[in-house]
């Protein structure tokens, strides 16, 4: 009786099957390892040790490893930054000299009004909250529009990290005349009044119509700007800074005068302009305007009485 098994194909197939099985096992083992070797795990081990070193033995004992997140659906916040940035709420207890990412958040005076559990991290610092890796969180990868406002990014704009963050503060604090902790924006708002930009431009229904409306200028697509006369990196921030200083060079046909203002003023105003964006936060998060509107420049048409006060 003929052997029903095909000897030749059996031998070859068998050997290859063994090879493929071993490769399968190796790949699965690597997959399991990579899943375990997450970016945050070593930091969490360091943090546990840091807690013990600071004398917080009970907290160290209760510390369990795992992804941590701050979730606030009202703001659309899903921030997993705190899986690595573990010291954020420990300022005063853990030393400020702890290396990042474990260092406590600087104890700024206005922090009490922005509890971490409610605001998370990304409304102020931007970045990609969903990520559990440093590059994913800070940089965001291809097509991520809101990179974290890092020191490096600020330096490339010629401002400090705090000033860059103030831009985001103004998303909500837009209606304030002046806000504690927002020196750069406060200056910009004063300059905006002093320079009487509303003679030509309009913002939130107030102002002239000979120049573009700037109410949501911060949302404007970078592709829509003409960079042919802008020097340096092609960023909207740069465009605005140079346009504020020498509008005639940046936009040759413009009627806007060359203010030739000091660069730091131009940078503050550029941050202000970029802060004017649509935001979806519920009204309880937006501080409402307190003071009555200032008198408008006489050269402008009569302001719309139903409009909200100027920024």
């Amino acid at each position, binding site marked *: 009786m003929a052997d029903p098994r095909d000897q030749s194909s059996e031998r070859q197939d*068998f*050997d290859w*099957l*063994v090879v493929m*099985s*071993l490769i*399968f*096992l190796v*790949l*699965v*083992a690597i*997959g*399991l390892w990579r*899943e375990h070797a997450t970016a945050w795990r070593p930091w969490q081990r360091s943090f546990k040790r840091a807690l013990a070193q600071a004398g917080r033995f009970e907290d160290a004992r209760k510390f369990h490893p*795992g*992804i941590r*997140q701050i*979730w606030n*659906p009202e703001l659309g916040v899903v921030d*997993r930054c705190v899986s690595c940035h573990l010291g954020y*709420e*420990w*300022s*005063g*207890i*853990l030393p400020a000299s702890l290396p990042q990412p474990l260092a406590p958040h600087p104890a700024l005076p206005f922090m009490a009004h922005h*509890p971490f*559990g409610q605001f998370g991290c990304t409304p102020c610092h931007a970045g990609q909250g969903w990520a559990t890796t440093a590059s994913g969180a800070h940089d965001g990868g291809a097509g991520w529009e809101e990179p974290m406002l890092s020191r490096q990014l600020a330096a490339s704009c010629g401002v400090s990290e705090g000033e860059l963050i103030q831009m985001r503060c103004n998303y909500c604090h837009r209606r304030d005349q002046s806000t504690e902790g927002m020196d750069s924006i406060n200056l910009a708002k004063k300059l905006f009044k002093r320079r009487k930009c509303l003679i030509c431009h309009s913002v939130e229904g107030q102002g002239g119509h000979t120049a573009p409306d700037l109410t949501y200028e911060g949302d404007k697509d970078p592709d829509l700007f003409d960079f042919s006369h802008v020097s340096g990196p092609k960023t909207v921030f740069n465009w605005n800074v140079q346009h504020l200083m020498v509008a005639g060079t940046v936009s040759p046909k413009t009627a806007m005068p060359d203010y030739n203002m000091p660069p730091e003023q131009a940078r503050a105003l550029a941050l202000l302009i970029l802060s004017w964006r649509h935001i979806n936060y519920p009204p309880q998060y937006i501080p409402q305007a307190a003071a009555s509107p200032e008198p408008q420049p006489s050269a402008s048409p009569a302001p719309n009485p139903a409009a909200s006060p100027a920024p």
Partner: protein
Amino acid sequence: METDRRTILRWLGKGSVFAAFVAQIGAAARAFFPNVLYEPPTTFKLKPPQDYPQGYTFDSQHRLFVVRAAAKFHVISAVCTHLGCTVQWRGTEFDCPCHGSRFDANGKVLSGPAPSPLPWFEVTLSPDGLLEVDSAATVPEGSALTGPVEKA
């Protein structure tokens, strides 16, 4: 026993596939245990201890009572142990509006269908000076946190 090369290879192959297959099933099962929850956390922070008056303060968001006696704080759950309605504080006792359970000021059952007393949640002081409640950890009746406040 004759160790044939073919037999060794056969068992190596089968063993690898079996082990890898089991690991795959394990990985798939692990994926279904969520690592993050889109739920209110079981541990949460309330207000600073000095913001709480003496006596019983109801927190509707978290369904609990913060009880302050001089400088001592404890937290009693407001969820009736019968079927989960929110009990009301009547000055001397808790009453449940749904089926009439009554609990004394410490949460012990006085009457009604409730099978067990209102649990006391563990309360600690968070690093940034707020009362922190762990609703997944119950503590025996009588435990209290001594807050960093002046005896009122």
